[in-house]
């Protein structure tokens, strides 16, 4: 045990797991994804059982990869069906065990395409990507999305069965298939981030990690020469601009802050800069995707000075045309209220209030409550906030709503 133990990089196990599963899947074939996962899991267990005694090795990633390689060879010797892969595993040169960040990123990118291919059930793509590329475990994915562990586990099983069935090649799809495949990847990353960002009552820390993973992966995609398309940059811009505000979203007591209350000095400047960089690159071309519009709106919110609400209202109008969902309509109503006053906003919200897709969706009564309060109708405002308290919402949001109710009751 060396006395000067190097500190382990945060999330090293998770990162290395993603890296190794991708590298092993390349060699073993996508149909052996589960096998690759088992081998990687065993290598990590080996590290956990060894490093407490002999200390963390100089190159932890290389150590893990070497153990995984030995373990894979063991398995191949036992499994006749895998015998022909032995040569490939042996062919893993020292270069693979050593650091090869570029090769590792390419492997991960191909892995994302395997996890998110259109043949895999939509609801399983995010979970599978988090599991195999991000190194997240089932309990963590379940906690981030407030789902049951059994549900997530089942999705993963189904997705892996599908992959075993279709045996996709380990590659970034060829040009003819690329647009559809890329759409599917971008959609999964969008969901990975948004569901993590907004998950009602999900656990804060793991949600942040899931969001950070979505940001890492979308940058990986957008930076790849074959995938350098405006839509990918637009999504990268959107996620980066949202993520940049993350450190300022809650106060030190964990209370949620509104955009206008946030301490802008806490915003993550490098992420903001990267977001605007991708927004620029997204504009190179005639394409206008949902991601473009959402990124443009996010950009308005982080631009210094007076918020340009009329422009935001326009953007929401365009967005509503491309993505006519009640949630978009609700957001548009907020912008409308900023431009034309609370009464116009209230009318717009009341129009969508009965939509079954919004049943139990706490932001709706909260928005109405805010608009009524702004219009001076404290009675209706308090009623809507109380309605929101009857719905499921994250704890910081709840505290916030309770405060609003108390404040309004004092006014009366």
């Amino acid at each position: 045990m060396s006395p000067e133990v190097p500190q382990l990089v945060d999330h090293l196990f998770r990162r290395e797991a993603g890296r190794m599963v991708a590298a092993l899947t390349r060699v073993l074939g996508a149909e052996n994804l589960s096998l690759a996962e088992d081998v990687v899991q065993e290598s990590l267990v080996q590290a956990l059982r060894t490093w407490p005694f002999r200390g963390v090795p100089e190159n932890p990633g290389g150590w893990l990869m070497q153990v995984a390689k030995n373990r894979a060879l063991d398995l191949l010797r036992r499994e006749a069906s895998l015998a022909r892969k032995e040569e490939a595993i042996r062919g893993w040169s020292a270069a693979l065990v050593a650091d090869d960040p570029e090769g590792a990123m390419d492997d991960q990118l191909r892995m994302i395409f395997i996890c998110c291919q259109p043949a895999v059930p939509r609801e399983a793509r995010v979970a599978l990507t988090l599991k195999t590329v991000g190194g997240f475990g089932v309990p963590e994915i379940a906690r981030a999305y407030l789902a049951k562990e059994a549900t997530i586990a089942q999705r993963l099983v189904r997705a892996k069965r599908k992959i075993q069935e279709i045996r996709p090649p380990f590659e970034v799809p060829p040009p003819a298939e690329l647009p559809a495949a890329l759409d599917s990847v971008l959609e999964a990353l969008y969901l990975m981030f948004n569901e993590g960002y907004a998950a009602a009552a999900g656990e804060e820390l793991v949600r942040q990690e899931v969001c950070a993973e979505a940001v890492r992966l979308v940058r990986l995609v957008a930076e790849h020469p074959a995938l350098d398309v405006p839509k990918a940059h637009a999504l990268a811009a959107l996620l980066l601009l949202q993520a940049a505000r993350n450190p300022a979203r809650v106060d030190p007591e964990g209370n949620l802050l509104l955009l206008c209350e946030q301490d802008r000095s806490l915003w993550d400047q490098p992420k903001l800069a990267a977001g605007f960089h991708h927004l620029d690159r997204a504009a190179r071309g005639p394409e206008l995707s949902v991601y473009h519009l959402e990124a443009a709106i996010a950009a308005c919110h982080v631009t210094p000075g007076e918020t340009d609400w009329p422009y935001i209202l326009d953007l929401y109008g365009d967005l509503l045309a491309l993505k006519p969902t009640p949630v978009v309509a609700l957001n548009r109503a907020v912008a409308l209220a900023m431009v034309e006053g609370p009464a116009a906003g209230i009318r717009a919200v009341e129009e969508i209030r009965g939509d079954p897709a919004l049943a139990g969706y706490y932001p709706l009564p909260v928005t109405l409550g805010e608009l009524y309060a702004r219009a001076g109708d404290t009675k209706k405002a308090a009623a809507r906030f109380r309605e929101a308290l009857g719905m499921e919402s994250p704890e910081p949001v709840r505290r916030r709503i309770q405060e609003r109710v108390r404040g309004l009751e004092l006014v009366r």
Partner: protein
Amino acid sequence: MAKFALLLHENPRDFQNLTPEQMQVMLGRYRAWGQKVREAGQMVGGHKLKDEGGRHMRRNGDGGVHATDGPYTEAKEVLGGLYVIEAGDYREAEEIAQGCPHLDNGWIELRQIDEM
């Protein structure tokens, strides 16, 4: 000062369901404990034992030595590794061992090394 061996028993299977992040957290706890014991000047050393290839060796009736493979399979409990620490007496050694996170993964056999 007396020396004590901490024999760490575990079932490797028990680790299989941990997520990578949970494993890293667990490793951090082992390391923090090891560092604390080291800094207190109480750590003599530690070794991981290999799971595979272990032997049980016994003298045969005819005077030869017979070696059998130990029960070192992943389905069974194994002696995973050992630490040697220094402590004044069993009570103190027990106190040190109590902080070891291995107690969450298996069990610890604490034995004084006989130096008489």
